[in-house]
Structures are given as structure tokens and as C-alpha cells.
């Protein structure tokens, strides 16, 4: 990753592959549980028990059933105890990805996306600071472990990953950006292998924030692309992938899950919290990603949309898909898996990348659940039930507060 003015830039862009993936979501704590859940078209919402929601308009979310006990793959009880909930989600997903890639660590970069980071610890610090005599030692520990880079450095140590750490916080696009950054590092020859992903845990401040914005569906059931959709549901989880040069994967004799064909990023400056109604920046990221991959829209077999279920997001994304696909729009298959898990914020882009890879591997399309009457913007083929399909190339969109837009395209090995 280093820069030196004496070093020439490599002009040889290399094929990039994924050799490991891991996922923790409200649907399950590993890939097998998630695959089964998405194949069955299951929803994963439950009452929030992590903090007080009695005075909120909404009391449910996609909460992960996370054990208090340290997992049995070598993480010490002490290290697990120091990790915040988000990092616990992250370490489980990262460990699963590394195991599949037969990776034991090393001097590889770690790129992570998160939005809320260790906010629950910050909340505890705040509450304790307001009481008369908070314990100084406990408060210092909270200040220290509240910091995302402390948590991720500890996670890297536990995983044996000792390369540079980059934490991207582009709100809800963070996880996709992390994988996109990893793609570029490997593609340009600046790294052979990168561990990349995203995570976020539910926390009171963010839950209350979305509620204050009236962005949460009052029913607790999100209906992305439904004509009468009324908001999103929050969730939590983590997704990680091992991004590797094809040459490195061959030399290590590890199985390739998929190729990463492209990454596009752009900034929507329309408004801090509202996308441009015509989806201008989303159009740019989809177009630039397709140009990088050398693909026409009709060659994309499935879009895992950002699809939050808010009125503004879905109309903007729908318009962008229409403009991007043109006459081919009727052939484009689209769904939002947030309808099943909720919105995982900083983890969403990475988790949905893993779901996209799952679709490629298992040859099925996960569904947009809970749609009663599709919005008029859905001139595309909205996948309303899980569907068996030939899936060769998948595009996934992630858009965030602040206008961070990202698109990733994955393909079956050799498809490029």
C-alpha cells in the first residue's frame, strides 16, 4: 500500500477473486444458516432486547442471537470480553471467511467498514459520566474500547492479521466501500490478499436517531419497493470476504468463490440524508462499474439493491435502475434482502455482498419479501419469492447518508 515517488505504477491490472466469505446476520450466525434462511424466504425480526425501546415508536429489529460465551476457535475469554458487540459480530464473520480461504493471518491489510462502531460502549460512558462519582478505571476502559480502531486492532491481533488497518465510515455504504478498496489494492498489485468486510451492531443512539427521523417502519416490517412502503427496519450483522489475486489463489490452491469484476463509487451531494430523486449518483456508480467490467446491463443476472424500504430511497434507486438499464429494464431481476434482515448500516454493503456471492454459488435469487403491490417504479423484474436461476453475474448497490454511493459486481470464475 506504500507510496514512493521512485516506484513506477503497475499498469497491469490483475484479475481479483474472492476465496473466502463469512456472514453473521439476524438470519443466522454463519453461511449455512443464512443460505437456508434466504432460500426459504424467511424474515428475521424480533423484539429488541439490547436496550430500552419502550418509549420508541418501534420495538423490533433484526437482532442477532449472539452468545455471551467466547467461540471455540481460539479467541480468549478475556479478548472476547473486551470486544464490543459489533466486533464480536465482525470476528465471527471474518474468522469464517479466513477459514474458507485457508488463511491463518499474516502481513495482510484489513479493510473494514462501520458506521456506529462501538457506540454501545460510548453510550455506557456517557451514562456513567453523568452520575456523581463514576469509576475512573472503568471509564478509561470505556473511552479506550469505544474507539473503532482499538476494537479492530484487537480483532486483527486475535486473527493473526498484522498488515495495515483501514476503517471506512461512509455510513450505509461503508461495507461495500471496504470491499471496493480491497479490490483496487489487489487489482493494482499493491496487495496480494486483503481481508475486507463490514459490521454494525444495534445501539440505542442510532435506533433512536432513525426513529426521530421517522425512517423506521411503524409496523416493524419493511416492504422495499412496495407502493405503500413506510420505512425501514434496523438490523445488525457482519460480512467479510478474503479478496485475493487470481494468481495468489492459484498458487495457494484455494477454491475460488467468485471474481470481483468491478467497483464504482460516487458522491450524491443533493442532501445530507436524501438521495437525488432521479438517483443520479447511483446511476453513475452502476454505469462506471459496468464500464469497468465491460458489461451491458442485460448481462447482469441479479441486482441486490440497496432497497431500504423508505419512500425516498426506493424511488431514487428504482429510477437509477431504469435509466441504467434502458430498454433492458424488464429483464433485470432485483430484490432487497433488507426486507428479511433489516438495514445493517455499516455492515449492509458487506453482508449484501456475501448474499450476492451466495446467490452466485447456490444459483438462486433471494427475495424482496412483504411486497403487496409493487411501486410503479418497478419496471424491472422484482423478485418477490426466492427463485432458482442461472446466476453468472451479480451487481449490488449500497447508498449511505451523506451521499456515499457504491456498486460492486461479482461474477462466476472465468466469466470475465
Amino acid at each position: 500500500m506504500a507510496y514512493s515517488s521512485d516506484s513506477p505504477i503497475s499498469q497491469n491490472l490483475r484479475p481479483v477473486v474472492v476465496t473466502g466469505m463469512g456472514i453473521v446476520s439476524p438470519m443466522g450466525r454463519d453461511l449455512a444458516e443464512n443460505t437456508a434462511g434466504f432460500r426459504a424466504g424467511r424474515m428475521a425480526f424480533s423484539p429488541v432486547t439490547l436496550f430500552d425501546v419502550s418509549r420508541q415508536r418501534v420495538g423490533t429489529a433484526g437482532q442477532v442471537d449472539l452468545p455471551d460465551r467466547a467461540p471455540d476457535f481460539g479467541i480468549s475469554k478475556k479478548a472476547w470480553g473486551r470486544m464490543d458487540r459489533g466486533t464480536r459480530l465482525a470476528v465471527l464473520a471474518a474468522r469464517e471467511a479466513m477459514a474458507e480461504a485457508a488463511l491463518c493471518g499474516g502481513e495482510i491489510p484489513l479493510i473494514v467498514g462501520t458506521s456506529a462502531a462501538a457506540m454501545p460502549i460510548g453510550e455506557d460512558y456517557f451514562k456513567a459520566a453523568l452520575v456523581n462519582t463514576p469509576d475512573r478505571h472503568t471509564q478509561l476502559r470505556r473511552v479506550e474500547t469505544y474507539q473503532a480502531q482499538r476494537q479492530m486492532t484487537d480483532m486483527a491481533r486475535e486473527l493473526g492479521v498484522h498488515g495495515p488497518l483501514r476503517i471506512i465510515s461512509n455510513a450505509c455504504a461503508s461495507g461495500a466501500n471496504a470491499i471496493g478498496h480491497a479490490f483496487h489494492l489487489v487489482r493494482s498489485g499493491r496487495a496480494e490478499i486483503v481481508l475486507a468486510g463490514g459490521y454494525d451492531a444495534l445501539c440505542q443512539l442510532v435506533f433512536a436517531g432513525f426513529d426521530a427521523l421517522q425512517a423506521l417502519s411503524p409496523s416493524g416490517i419493511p416492504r422495499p419497493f412496495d407502493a405503500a412502503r413506510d420505512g425501514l427496519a434496523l438490523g445488525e450483522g457482519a460480512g467479510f470476504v478474503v479478496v485475493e489475486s487470481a494468481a495468489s489463489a492459484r498458487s495457494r490452491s484455494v477454491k475460488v468463490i467468485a471474481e470481483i469484476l468491478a467497483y464504482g463509487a460516487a458522491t450524491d451531494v443533493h442532501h445530507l440524508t436524501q438521495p437525488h430523486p432521479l438517483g443520479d449518483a447511483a446511476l453513475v456508480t452502476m454505469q462506471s462499474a459496468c464500464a469497468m467490467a465491460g458489461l451491458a446491463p442485460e448481462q447482469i443476472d441479479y441486482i441486490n439493491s440497496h432497497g431500504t424500504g423508505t419512500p425516498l430511497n426506493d424511488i431514487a434507486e428504482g429510477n437509477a435502475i431504469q435509466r441504467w438499464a434502458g430498454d433492458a429494464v424488464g429483464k433485470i431481476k432485483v430484490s432487497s434482502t433488507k426486507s428479511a434482515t433489516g438495514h445493517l448500516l455499516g455492515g449492509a454493503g458487506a453482508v449484501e455482498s456475501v448474499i450476492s456471492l451466495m446467490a452466485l454459488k447456490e444459483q438462486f435469487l433471494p427475495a424482496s419479501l412483504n411486497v403487496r403491490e409493487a411501486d410503479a417504479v418497478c419496471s424491472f423484474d422484482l423478485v418477490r419469492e426466492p427463485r432458482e436461476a442461472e446466476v453468472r453475474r451479480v451487481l449490488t448497490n449500497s447508498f449511505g447518508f451523506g451521499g456515499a454511493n457504491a456498486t460492486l459486481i461479482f461474477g462466476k470464475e472465468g466469466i470475465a
Partner: protein
Amino acid sequence: MKLAITGTGAVSSAGWGVAALMDALASGKTPEPSLLDRTGGETLIRTPVLRVPTEGATTPKFARLRRTSPISKFAAAAAVEALGESRMAAIAAGELRVGVIFTLLNGCVNYSNRFFGEVLTDPAMASPILFPETVFNAPSSHLSAMIGSHAPNDSLIADSTGFFSGIDLAAEWIQRGEVDGCLVVASEEIDWLSAEGLCLYSKNYLPSEGAGAIYLEAADGPVRLLHLPDPVSFSGYSRIEAAVKIRERLNVENDGHALLIDGRVDIARFDLPETKAWSDWSGPRWSPRVTLGEAMGASTALQIVAAVEALKAGGFQKAVVTATGGNQQATGVLLGR
């Protein structure tokens, strides 16, 4: 590809602008601390801090900045200074693609503090205006909107060394041809909560705030980016080992002529890694945090701004800037004319 820093901006406890920063470093005189009172809680606690002075503020006129907290205002002022009028006009005319990279440790603590306080009191009355500003990438979103750039924009969370990672990413974007140039900004604000938090590490810390910005582009001067080695992660090395390793990676000649600007704060146990790693340094050495307080990521950005200005002034041919963060990595960069 040759990369150069062709613009700088600063907001610090010394005042608004690069000139105020350099004057303060030249004098070595720490501004007068003020006392920051708790706004909640049962006990009155006062923390000595170095605030950015309100007089002389150069916050740009831009609608979105009206409702923001200081972190975005500092960032915007530093960014506009680093870009300069002609680049701002070129971006607006669509003639210049400028990426934005924003690095931070603390984020928008003022609004987070206020919003969460409202949530605990009555979530039904918590302000929807405050919440979006608590998101880590809100300041960088304002920067892109202010300059009218649709080019990539990333916010990086890191310990106080994050600005180096930001420069690394900017170099990557420029080399790849994704942008014509890149604005790298670090900004931090304080409130009573974060100031007390910092002082839990040591009562000798003087919490501060501010922003530093540089504009990086493909060019041959006036100040070139010569070498930016990979940071050394604390996941595999102690802070001291990491600082020593960074010096090795920088491979800078100790000939008595290059300027070293380090991240020391004048607290022995936190300074130990850089004190040890550079114990034999024979050239001039500046430690801006000692004068201007601890503004976390912004302090590191101000170190780099100071190095660029020192090189531009002609007193040195090379400058090396180092920082050893609290809990992530040790970093360094070599700059030259």
C-alpha cells in the same frame, strides 16, 4: 508518478489559517487555556482546554454549514484555504475532479452528546436535526457538497495517525486516474465529555481541536511527497517497536539538515516510542502538540501542514513527519522540495 502538496489549510488553537499556525509554532508560545464546564451531571467539573478562538473565524458561507457543529466548520475553513479560489472555481465549472478524504478519531461529539442526552430524557422529543450530524461522514459530505464535487469521498476512522492513511488513499486515487487531485482533511472538535475522556489517560493532556487540510495532486513541486511507507500496526508490534520500524521504513538520512516534526505531547509515557525511535536525531525537531494541545487526528494534519510550510519557506530541503497513535499504528512520511 510525482505527487506534490500544492495547498494547505489550518484551523487550530492558534487561530484560523496557516499563518496563525506557523506564527504560533515560531513563537513556541501556548495559547491561554480556557475552562470547559460540564453541561450535565451532578458535579461541576472544569477541564482546561485549548479551544479554537471564535474571533477571526473564516467559516465559508454555505447553507449546509449553518446547522453544523464546529467539526464541519473547521473542516470547511481548512479545505477552502487548501484549495484556493481558482481551484474552487475550476471544480464548480466541472474542469477539475477533486476527491475528498476525511479522517477523524472523535467525530461530532457535541451533537452526539446533545442527541443522546435528549434520547435518554425523552426519545419522542429527540431532535431529528441533530442526529444526521452525529454520523461520522457528515463533515465530509458537507465538504463535497460545498465544493460541488461528485468524485469519490471517503471518511476514515483511525487513531491520531489517520491523516497518513488519508494521504496514502489520496495517492492511490490520483495514480489510478480517478481524480485530478485530492483534498485530505482531518478535523476534530471537543466538548466536556471528550475532554474529560482524554484527561482520563493523563491529567497533563491539554485537549484541543481544529483542522488541517492539504491538496495533493500530480505535480513536481513546490513540496513533493517522497515516501509514505506502510503504517506499522499495533496488532503485531508494540508502540515502541512500531515507531522504530517506521523510522527504518522511512530510511531518512540523519545528516542534521532535515526537519523532524513528531507527534510528542510532552507526556513521557506517551512520547516514549518516538523519543526512543529518534533519540539520535541530529537535525531540528518540532513537536506542535506541545504548543497547540492534543487535537487528535487534526494535530497530525497540522504537523504535515507545518512541514509543508517549513519546506516552502526554504529553510529545509527535506522534512520527515511521524506520529505514533494511541491504539492502532505508527506512521511517518518524508516530504521534500
